Structure formats: C-alpha cells, structure tokens
C-alpha cells in the first residue's frame, strides 16, 4: 500500500528571513544574503564572500529553558523544527501522544565544535575540555538535542549525503510515510558556517573569487567561478495525506516522488556526472507517475560552480528535450549561498511559495549564459508562471544526486 505524503509545515532559518514567505519575497525582489565576511574570517582565503546568519537569536525561537547545552547547529535545527511544528499545528499535546520521527540531514554537523574540542585538548591537555562539549561533537547531536527540546520520541535519524543531505532527508522521510507506515516526520537539514569549512572549500578551489569587481557568484552565468558558502536550517513537516486531511491540517503541497543516485567518478567524469543526474530526474518523475510535460518549473542545484552548473544544464537539456529552452528554471543559491544541507529544504520552501503565488524568483545578477546554453527559461528577474508542480534538484560534491517532485495537492 502506497500512502500519499503531504507537506503541512515549513520552518526556515535563512540569511534572507525566517519564513518561506520572507525568503521567497526577498529572492523575487532580487535581494541577496551574500556579503563580504571581513578580513578576520578571510584569513588568506581567496574568497571573501559568504551568506551568513548574522543576526540569528536563538532565544527568539527557543524560550523557557537554558540554551547553553545546545551548540549552534543544534540551536538552528531546534529553532527551524519549532517553526515547522508551529506551522503544521503539531502542538505539545499531539507530540506527547504520538511518536513523532525526526530526520536531520547534515554535511558538517558541529564541525567547529569538534575542531575546537580537539584543539583545546591538544593545547591545554585532555582535562581542560568539558564533557558536555563532547556530547555535541557527535554528528547526530542536532537531531538528539532537537528531539529532547521538542519531545519527539519516534525514529531519530541523521543522514549524511554531503551538500544534498537536507533534500535527501526529505526524500527518506517521504519513503517512511509512503512505504513504511510512518504518520508524521519532521525532515530537513542544518549546516553552519565555520572557519573549518570555509578554509576547506577555499583550499579545494570551490569558492567564488571575484575580488576585484565584488560581483556575486551567479548560478549558470558565464562569469561564474565558484560558490559562496552559506548556512541555515530548513525543516518540513511531512505527514500521511489522509491523516493530515482528517486532523484538518493545511496542506501546502504534496511530495510526489523522490530519487537518488551516485556518480562513482565523483564529478571527475563529466559524461557520467551528467548521465547520473539524468537518471535521477527520470527515476524521480517515474516514481511520481509524471512525465516531463507535467513539470512546470525547476529549482536547480546550481550555485556558481564551474563544472557542476554546466552538468546540471546538460542534464536538464537531456531530460526535457525540446521543452528545455523555455522551461522555467530558478537557482536560489545566488541569494542564500550554498547552504549545504539547508539548501534543499530552502529550495522546497521557495518552490511551495511559487506554487502558491505563481511567482518564480529569478537568478539574481544573471547577465550572460554561456553561448551553448541560451535559454529563455533562465532569467535574472522574477516572473509569473503557471505553477502546479516543481522538480527540485540536488547535485552533491561527492557524486550524490537527488531529485524531488512536489505538486499542488489535488
């Protein structure tokens, strides 16, 4: 028996606002969350831009108990989960009565904490580190802390698939409801900006380095040379469709299908990279019982990467054929940066706003697509489109690909 899956709530902490409405509005207005990070952080890095949460105040979202045991990732996840619970109407009574499951995607978890814990122990001896700090070095700390904060006693899992971890968590949660009898799952992702990841991505040559012009990283644009690192948290309240209807929940959209696949060349073989994403999109469509003609727009994974943005364009051309040139495509990482595990859930949240309003955000700052990719469907400004269904892509750095199809619930 296959159950339908409803999205009944969204919780979002992003550099452009803490609601899907605010984020969608900012993106449609062409605002960006990417800014210079200051010389202290740059510290020899070729990149000096990032999309950071400069004014995140955890106490605004998490009241009544001490926040000290929660590290930043746990605070971001707990805050976003709280917003998703509120938005879906899963109050404390219904949480006490039901075993709500939590699925957290993350790439780095609290890497800064882990490094800090180790550096303190190395510099001042093992006796100098706090046992409580160790609890936050486990990669599933955010999931555990969130479950404790909101009293969620169902399956508590953390999934790691690199930068697509968040959308992967949403996909797995969908499977739990569709095939494994789960009633409700809170699923999404969290990643924080850290000196460690900023330094690592910089050393790998993956970050944007437009220092002279101060121009932003622009997905798909001919001038792109890397992405800006972002941070945030995004969670969706997913539940079994009939159950959601029966309790009178507001249904924001339906998850129609999901697929994931792996490019074992890990991006080194362009043909295999493109083929793998093509296979992922085809599988997601067939599991959604939809054809390419049923998709109204695409939320691309593109973030300004030299290689991966072009892989995605090639894959879209292969999947959508003649429709590809006019197919509306947006890429929101020009606004929120590459927020890693938080990216996918943010893409879903913005897509839901597009389904609701018909407004598709533009690719901020886009001037020129590469000549081989002249596309009417990719534009710098927001526009109104027919929007009943969306394909959302995630193309990871490690070879993992995923695609999720959502649609207006019938």
């Amino acid at each position: 028996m296959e159950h339908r899956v409803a999205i009944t709530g969204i919780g979002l902490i992003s550099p452009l606002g803490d609601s899907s409405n605010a984020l969608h509005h900012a993106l449609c207005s062409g605002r960006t969350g990417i800014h210079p990070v200051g010389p202290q952080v740059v510290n020899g890095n070729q990149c000096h831009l990032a999309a950071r949460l400069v004014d995140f105040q955890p106490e605004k979202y998490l009241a009544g108990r001490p926040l000290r045991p929660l590290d930043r990732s746990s605070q971001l996840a707990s805050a976003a989960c709280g917003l998703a619970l509120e938005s879906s109407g899963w109050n404390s009574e219904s949480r006490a009565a039901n075993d709500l499951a939590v699925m957290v995607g993350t790439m780095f978890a609290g890497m800064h904490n882990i490094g800090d814990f180790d550096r303190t122990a190395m510099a001042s001896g093992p006796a100098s580190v706090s046992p409580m700090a160790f609890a936050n070095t486990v990669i599933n700390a955010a999931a555990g802390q969130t479950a404790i904060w909101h009293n969620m006693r169902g399956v508590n899992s953390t999934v790691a698939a690199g930068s697509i971890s968040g959308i992967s968590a949403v996909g797995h949660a969908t499977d739990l409801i569709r095939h494994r009898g789960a009633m409700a799952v809170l699923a999404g992702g969290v990643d924080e900006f850290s000196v460690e990841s900023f330094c690592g991505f910089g050393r790998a040559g993956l970050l944007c380095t437009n220092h002279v012009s101060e121009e932003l990283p622009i997905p798909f644009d001919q001038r792109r040379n890397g992405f800006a690192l972002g941070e945030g948290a995004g969670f969706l309240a997913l539940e079994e469709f009939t159950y959601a209807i029966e309790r009178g929940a507001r249904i924001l959209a339906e998850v129609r299908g999901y697929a994931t696949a792996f490019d074992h060349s890990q991006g080194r073989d362009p043909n295999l990279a493109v083929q793998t994403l093509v296979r992922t999109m085809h599988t997601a469509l067939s599991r959604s019982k939809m054809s390419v003609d049923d998709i109204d727009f695409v939320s691309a994974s593109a973030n300004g990467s030299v290689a991966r943005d072009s892989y995605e364009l090639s894959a879209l051309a292969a999947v959508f054929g003649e429709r590809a040139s006019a197919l509306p495509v947006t890429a929101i990482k020009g606004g929120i940066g590459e927020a890693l595990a938080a990216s996918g859930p943010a893409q879903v949240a913005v897509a839901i706003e597009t389904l609701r309003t018909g407004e598709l955000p533009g690719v901020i700052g886009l001037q020129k697509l590469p000549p081989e990719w002249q596309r009417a469907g990719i534009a710098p400004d927001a526009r109104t489109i027919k929007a009943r269904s969306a394909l959302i892509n995630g193309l990871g750095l490690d070879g993992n690909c995923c695609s999720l199809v959502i649609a207006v619930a019938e």
Partner: protein
Amino acid sequence: MPSGLPKNGHPRQSAPDETVVTGVGLVTSIGTGKEIFWQNLLAGRCGIGPVEAFSTEHFPVHHGAEIKDFDANDYVNRLPAGKIGRASELAIAAAHLALADAHLSFTEADLEQAGVVVGTTSGEPGVIERFDDLYIEGRINQLSSDFIDNYPCNALAAHVASELGLGGEVLTIPTACAAGNYAIAHASDLLQMRRARIMLAGGADSFSRITYTGFARLGAISTDLCRPFDRNRKGMIPGEGAAMLVLERRADAVARGARIYAVIAGYGLSCDAYHMTSAHPQGAGAARAMEMALRSSETLPEEVDYISAHGTGTPTNDRLETIAIKRVFKDYAYRVPISSIKSMLGHAMGAASAIEAIACVLAITYGYIPATIHLETQDPECDLDFIANCSREHKVNIAMNNAYAFGGNNSSVIFRRYEA
C-alpha cells in the same frame, strides 16, 4: 500482543521479497575476515591493550582496542590509500571482503542497482585532527586541497561506492553508537521498496584521540579491561573497526544460487528524548525499540534464542539494558542467552552494532554463541544469563541485536534463520 502472530515453534513461510544476508566482511581488533574473527570470538580472544595510536600520558586511562595489522594497500585499489581517511579505508576493506564472501561480481547494469549505507559515530576524526595540528602550528594555509573530500562523514559511503563503482543509493548514517543497526535497517528498507537489488550495509569508525578524550572526560573509559555485567566493571574501552553485510531480496539470492546466512526479520528504532549522554532511567526507549522489533518481525519474545547486548561495560548501560530486557521478556529474560562481545572488541563505535550483527548471523549459521569474557563476579543487578567466559553451543533460530547511542537513540534488529 497483537493477534495473528505465529505460534511458538511454527515455521514461517519465507516471502520472496524479504531481505537476506548473503555476505559478511569485517576488520576488527581480533582479526580481519569472517573465519579469523569467528574463531577468535568463540575462543574469547581479547583485542584490548595499551593505546598505540597516540600518547595517553595525560590521560587517567590507557587501554584501547586498536587494529594493529591493517594495511590499506591490501584492499584499496581505485582510490588513493593513505590519502583518504582511515575509517573509509576500513569500510572499503570490509566491503571488499563482504562481496568476496557473497561471491558477487557486478555487471554494469547491476551497479546502478547497487548501493551502500555506512553507519558511523565520528566519520573521519583523523582528518580533522590533521587540520587541528596545522591550525595550532599556524600553518593552516598548508591544508590539503582534499580536506573537503575526506572530512565530512558522507565520505565514508561515497568512498566505498567510488571504490566499487556503485551507482545506486549511497548514504552515511551518523547516528553514533547505534549507527550500524540504523544502516542495516535503512538498507533493508530500500530493498523492500525495490529501490535497489543489492545493498552493502554496515558501519565504520577509526580509533581517534577526539573520541578517546571525550569518553575519558565523561569518565566512561575503564581503567583496566572491559567487563560487561560484572560487579567490578569500570567502563567501556574505545575501539575501532568496520563491518559490512551484503543484503539482497530472497528471490534474487536464490536465483543466483547464493549462500543465505539469515533473514532480516524486522527492526525497531526509538528515541528517549531524555538526555544527550544518559539513557532513560527505566530503559523505556530501549524497551520500546525491542518491542517494535519483535512486532515488526512477528516474533514472540520466547522465540528469541540469543540477544547480542549493547553491553558497553559502563555501570549505567549494563544495569539499564538489563532492566529493559526484563521489561520486554518478563520471566523469559532469565532464560534467553545474552552476551556482549564488546568484552573482547571494546566499543567500535558506529561499527560496533554492524560487527555484532555479523556475530548474530554467524551464531545462527554455526550454532554457537560467543561469550561475555572477563565476567568474573556477576553484578546482582545484572542477573541474567550473560554466557560468562565460555562460548556455548546452542541452536539459534532468532537473534536480536541491541544498540544504543548518544542522543537517546535506541535500536534493535532481529535476524532469523533462513528456511528454504
């Protein structure tokens, strides 16, 4: 108990879709590969000794369970051995051994239908330890350009898949010390949903100064050996290892003439939502996971022939696990054979429950149960049959594998004898 459960002793009909185990591979502190591991496990060999990976002079404790005879070059072919992290190397070795044990060779078409799920506690702590050394020395500009490829824990599954050329679902599940069980449960689900034809599932963790420091600061590490359920137990012993199982649907395994070790009959996962590092004082979450596993596998408590305990050797874990087993198994709790192989292997973190899963599968296959060694004076509060010191010949039709973790995560997986 829900109605409609099979009667005690009544053989079940095997469904063609059920998940079966057709290969096992592992690298542990008591040996690499199924044969040596099983031989040493039944002999009660202890893999615990003074830590060699780093100096413990500033620690109050000095023991660990390290793998001392591992050479990555023996196993890692496509990827650069020595450049990727140690946990990835251990996972790759276990995966190669498991595939060889399953007599599996892939065609191109199979590869797109084959995936891997790796559970882990710490991912690649050795990689960030190198980062930290550079940071402390002010040489961070010399950080290797492959840090991002090697540190984040998704690298474990990605490296196994890249080494083997897999194109299906590739996922790392970092649910701390229950991660191996989570990975096996997830991979089994993927097969049940027909998302794959072949899945590798298991866990990997490497011995690390970060993990050692953390458990030492929690006061959890034993000053001598690991003595689960003993009145004089002093704690756990950090270890390392990797274990991978080859999983397929029964009909596929039968069609290719594979040796079937056991069936994955069901599992239960739950969260205490109580405390990050302490378990629920009445073992509520652990009991719930065991009950869910019994229910999902349509197993009666009295049908369980062996429980592989989480059994870390800490005073609290062993007492609470005993309480939880009594809650679920009632009077039968005193009769079911239970052991903790962490007494020999220490705690291999995310790999532990995957290694223990293999012990369950081999117990079913060979009709022997490994012992809890160093169990000299049984704790009156841990008054069950913990198979003290000597392995036991015992027919095992159904085995339950328990694992618990930071974050209040509880897991139980049930393995059942395969009936053709």
